[in-house]
C-alpha cells in the first residue's frame, strides 16, 4: 500500500521526493487540488469512496496518515 501511495504522489507532483518529507502540507508539496487528484486515484485503486468529511489537509500530510485514512475506509494491507 505504501509503495502505491508514493507512486500516486509522485505522479501528481513529480518534482518532490515524498519519501524524504515529514509533512507534505507544511512543506507545500500538496495543495487542495493535489489532494483531490490523490483521493480520486485512491478511490479507484482500492475500490472505495473516501468519506468526504475526511478529505482534510491534515489527513494527507504523510504516507502514514494516508494509510490510516485508507484503513478507516476499509482498506487493509
Amino acid at each position: 500500500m505504501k509503495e502505491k501511495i508514493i507512486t500516486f504522489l509522485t505522479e501528481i507532483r513529480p518534482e518532490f521526493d515524498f519519501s524524504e518529507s515529514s509533512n507534505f502540507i507544511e512543506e507545500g508539496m500538496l495543495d487542495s487540488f493535489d489532494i483531490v487528484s490523490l483521493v480520486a486515484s485512491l478511490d479507484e485503486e482500492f475500490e472505495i469512496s473516501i468519506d468526504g468529511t475526511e478529505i482534510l489537509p491534515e489527513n494527507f500530510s504523510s504516507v502514514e496518515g494516508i494509510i490510516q485514512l485508507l484503513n478507516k475506509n476499509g482498506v487493509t494491507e
Partner: protein
Amino acid sequence: MNLKFRNKKITGILTVLPENEVNFDDEIDNYDFSRAQSMKLKLIMGYGKRRVVKEGTAVSDLCIYGMNYLFDKGLLKKEDIDGIVLVTQSPDHFVPATSHIIQGKLGLKQDMMLLDINQACSGYPVGLNQAFMLLDQEEVNKVVLLNADMMSSKVSAKDRGSRPLTGDAASITIVEKDSNDSTIYGTINVDGTGAESLIIPAGGFKMPSTPETAKLQTDKNGNSRALDHLVMKGDDVFNFVQKQVPPMIDNLLSKANCDKDDVDYYLFHQPNKFMLKKLADKMGVPHDKMPHNVVENFGNASGVSVPTAITFNLADKLLTESFLVCIAGFGAGLSWASLLMKLEKLDFCEMIDYK
C-alpha cells in the same frame, strides 16, 4: 428551520443560457497546472464547457428574454403574475432592485409583490420556499421565481479554483396554487460565521472598488486575485458541504416520513463533479439519481444550477411523468436549504439560448 406547504406546485421551468461558450481546453495556459494535472482534474472536477455572458449583458436582460419567450409562446400571461422573487448576487444596480427593472420593462401590472433576495448557491430552494410563502396569501395565485447570476466577470482569470467552473445563466420557475393535497417539505439553515468562506471583499459600501482593490495578489497556491474578485476558500466550503448536507437531507426525509430510496431524483446544486459524487456516496444515493453533469456542459451558475440540472436531464420526462424529487442548495452565507416535493406534468421544461 423546517417548513411545510400544501396546495402548491411548480408548473414550468425555463433555463436561459448565454450564447457565449468557453472551453476549458482553450484556457489551460491561464492556470498554474501542469498539462497532465489539468487533464486529470478535467475528468475529476468536470471542467469542460461553460456559458458566459458577453460584456454589457445584465441579469435583467437574461430574465426579460426568458419571460418574453414564455409570453410569445403563450406559456405565461402577464396579467396572471402576482409576484416575482428574483434571487441574484449580480444585480443590475445597487438601487433600484433589479426585479423592479424587470417588472417595468415587461409592462407587468402594478398590483404585485416584488422581492429581491441576495443568495448564492442555495438560491433555488431558498427562492422556492419564499415563493411558496407568498402563495399562502389569498390574492396571490401565481409567482414567478427568477434565479439569475453572472459571476464569471467577478472571478479572476488566474483563479484556478473558481474560474474553470463558473458560468452564467438565468432560470424562470412558475409556482402556483393547486388543488392537490400533497405536502411540500422544506428546510433552511444558515451560518454567518462562515461569511468569509465565499466573499467578494470589495465593491460594496464597506470597501468600495478603487484602483487599489483591482490589483492582483498571488496566494500561496499560485492563484492571483484582486479584492474585487470572488474569493472561495475551497477546503472550507467542501468540508461544510460534506458535513452539513447529508444530515439536512436525513432531517428533511424524516420530517416527510420518506425513505431515501423513495426519492426519484436528488437535484442538487452543481459546484463540481467531485463534490457531488462524494455527497452521493456519503448519502448512499446511486450516482444516476443525482445528476452531476451541469458543470462540464454549462458551468456552475450559482443558484441557477439546480433548474439547469432539471431542464438538462429531465426536460422530456417532466412533461408527461411525475417524480418525487429532493432539491438542495448550499454555499455562500454560509447557507444550505432543501425541498422534498413532487414534480409532475409541467407545462414547459426547457432550455433556450439568449440572443
